[in-house]
């Protein structure tokens, strides 16, 4: 990172009063020389002046009195209505009373009507062309709840997707089918190797790995967990916990959350049915705040939930990734054969926890793994810094050891932005080939929510300046290559699992800390595959990465270096420009 980047990073710290006197003096000196930072500093000042003005606003005493009276009147009306009806109705109407005062409009049109439906509050709207979700909330909500109350059995599928920060998605091979009845349930967990977006569904490649039953035993609840993967089982008793459950409980809770919906989504087709969706912010607070978003789609015809997505669930030990859980393929009033809920333990299975069996096997297969002492909080600091990276460039080379020397291929230069990226392959100093990876502009800025977008397209354009040819390949959501930034973040996230950690190493004149990690730590990789990564000790940004392996001809490695973080790119950096005389190379 150069001096300008370093100083511009301090502008926000300065605005929040967090710089030391020396840092403040350094910043002031830089501002005297840098018009760009001076402008940025003025902008920050303008924003904080705006907030200062906002701080000085207040309501006059009569407005306050009016507001108090309105609340108390609304409470009185609500209580009177309850007493008159004599029942705890699920429908309540609350009208904000516009008091007669000089701060408010006095007409009925100024009153806001909020319809409260068993805890669900909808904003009023009018039916438009059969779009019932904009119609009177009382009818819509009442209908959904009434339908749900009749449903006693439910079957649905659950699946998980791992999402990288730059949009890379990986569908987990694990998926489950869940059966729910009034007092019992069963969960069948399958494993299927998937590519980017195929969802497992009883395909021939799905293997049953685990079955879990929850069934009543008198007043107790018994949990049977049978792992077909590890050929073991456990039985747990929860005393006094046998109870009548409501399979629709979680779905009803989602309907109840719709009063906090942030927006209505465009209709989509799921399983051949047109559905309307709602998006709800379900973030949690506390010392480890988590930004969560739920999306729930309802069948336009039946008004029952068809799909629920829970976005943003953290992945343990990978701050750069999140989980999205998907519940779909709901079967309401499902006819579930009674034997589905009868626990079966195959002959020869041992009584043990699956985790213990797996750990024992893993220990046999792999050597004892090393874990270095990494300073507490360092990985999260690095993750936080990478969170603020918007653009990057770096050099990439592949080398092989021959006669005790590393020989490197021609280098590539990568240019990365959150949406598009580009790879220039160099021949000496000259660009021999450029690959552009550019999603359709309508997907720029899209989030992980849209990974199931069937119209998604990423265009890869390869321009070969040596052969004077070009080639265009369109990737869909199943096959698109990943943004290189996602990979960098994934490796950096593994800092806490390092085999070795070191500090005070100088790389290209920059004081760095670094770590080494065996690739077997995160999968069935050979011990000879190792990653190394160095970070600027001050900025915590990557300075160098190496991926080493051993093959029959000897050691090889891929090296990434010469990183520049958050550089400004010229207009057109990600726009393929193909000279008129270049010929198209046919696709295979």
């Amino acid at each position, binding site marked *: 990172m150069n001096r300008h980047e370093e100083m511009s990073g301090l502008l*926000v*710290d300065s*605005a*929040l009063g*967090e710089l030391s006197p020396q840092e403040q003096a350094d910043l002031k000196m830089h501002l005297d020389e840098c018009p760009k930072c001076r*402008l*940025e500093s*003025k*902008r*920050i000042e*303008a*924003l*904080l002046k*705006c*907030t200062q*003005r*906002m*701080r*000085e*606003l*207040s*309501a*006059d005493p*009569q*407005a*306050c009195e*009016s*507001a*108090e009276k*309105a*609340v*108390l009147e*609304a*409470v009185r009306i*609500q*209580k009177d209505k309850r007493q008159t009806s004599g029942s705890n109705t699920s429908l309540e109407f*609350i009208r*904000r009373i516009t008091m007669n005062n*000089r*701060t*408010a*409009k006095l007409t009925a049109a*100024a009153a806001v009507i*909020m319809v*409260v439906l068993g*805890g669900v509050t909808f*904003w009023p709207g009018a039916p438009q062309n059969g779009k019932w979700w904009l119609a009177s909330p009382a009818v819509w909500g009442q209908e959904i709840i009434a339908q749900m109350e009749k449903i006693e059995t439910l079957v649905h599928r659950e699946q998980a997707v791992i999402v990288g920060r730059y949009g890379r998605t990986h569908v987990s091979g694990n998926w489950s089918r869940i059966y729910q009845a009034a007092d019992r349930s069963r969960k069948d967990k399958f494993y299927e190797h998937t590519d980017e977006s195929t969802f497992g569904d009883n395909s021939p490649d799905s293997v049953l790995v685990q079955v879990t039953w929850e069934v009543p035993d008198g007043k107790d609840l018994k949990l049977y967990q049978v792992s077909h993967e590890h050929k073991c089982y456990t039985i747990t008793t929860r005393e006094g916990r046998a109870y009548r459950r409501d399979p629709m409980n979680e779905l009803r809770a989602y309907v109840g959350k719709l009063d*906090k919906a*942030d927006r209505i989504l465009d209709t989509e087709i799921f399983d051949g049915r047109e559905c309307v969706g709602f998006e709800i*912010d379900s*973030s949690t*607070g*506390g*010392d*480890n*705040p988590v*930004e969560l978003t739920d999306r729930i789609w309802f069948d336009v015809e039946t008004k029952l939930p068809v799909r629920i997505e829970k976005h943003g669930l953290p992945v343990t030990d990978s701050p750069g990734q999140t989980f999205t859980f998907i519940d779909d393929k709901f079967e309401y009033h499902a006819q579930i054969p009674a034997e589905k809920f009868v626990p079966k333990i195959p002959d020869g299975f041992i009584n043990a926890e699956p985790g213990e069996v797996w750990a024992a096997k893993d220990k046999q297969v792999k050597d004892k793994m090393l874990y270095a002492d990494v300073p507490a909080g360092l990985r999260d600091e690095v993750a*936080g810094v990478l*969170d*603020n990276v918007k653009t990057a460039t770096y050099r990439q080379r592949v080398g092989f050891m021959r006669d005790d020397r590393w020989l490197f291929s021609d280098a590539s230069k990568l240019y990365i932005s959150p949406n598009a990226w580009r790879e220039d392959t160099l021949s000496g100093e000259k660009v021999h080939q450029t690959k552009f990876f550019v999603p359709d502009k309508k997907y720029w800025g899209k989030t992980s929510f849209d990974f199931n977008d069937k119209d998604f397209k990423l265009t890869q354009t390869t321009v070969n300046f040596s052969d004077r040819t070009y080639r265009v390949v369109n990737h869909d959501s199943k096959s698109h290559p990943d943004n290189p930034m996602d990979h960098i973040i994934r490796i950096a996230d593994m800092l806490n699992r390092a085999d070795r950690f070191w500090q005070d190493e100088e790389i290209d004149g920059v004081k760095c800390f670094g770590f080494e990690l065996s690739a077997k730590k995160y999968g069935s990789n050979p011990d000879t595959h190792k990653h190394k990564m160095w970070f600027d000790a001050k900025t915590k940004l990557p300075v160098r990465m190496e991926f080493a392996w051993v093959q029959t001809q000897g050691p090889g490695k891929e090296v990434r270096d010469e990183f520049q973080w958050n550089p400004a790119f010229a207009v057109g950096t990600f726009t393929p420009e193909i000279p008129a005389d270049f010929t198209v190379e046919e696709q295979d």
Partner: protein
Amino acid sequence: MVSREKFKTLVDDCSKQVLNTAVRILGDVEQAQDVHQEVFMAIWRRWHKYNGRTNWNAYLYRVTVRKAIEFARRSRSQQSLRQQKHNGLSEHKPDGLMRAAELQKRLAGSLAELPKRQADAFVLSRIEGLDTRQIGEILGCSPETVRVHLHRALKRLMRELGDYLIE
């Protein structure tokens, strides 16, 4: 004291705080009154669940900021400055209010686009003037976490509002 009386006491004691917080975010007293009613009616609906240990100061700050920002998100336009002058807002400096009101509108809209915690931390710090320790108590997190949220919020707002901040 019966429930309703206790609730009335809460409204009497805390209305000013709730209303003023909403006014500062929305810049419009009528919208702030809507938020005020939403806040207290939401509390009333769950009144039987609150125990004597609720920290009302922190709770009301949290809920009011959240509801005001949600309100800003739902309502896409705010009243003009001319109407604001007749709406009982107390202002201290009349100069430059036209431009200030426009920027404030934009800021309220941008707050609605921030992640919740960042928006909450920013409002409580920059608009309500609380320090990180106080904000941490309200949001249920450490002062360090509050600082992280503030940093991120400020950076994102700078990006969102860029052009509107040039004199």
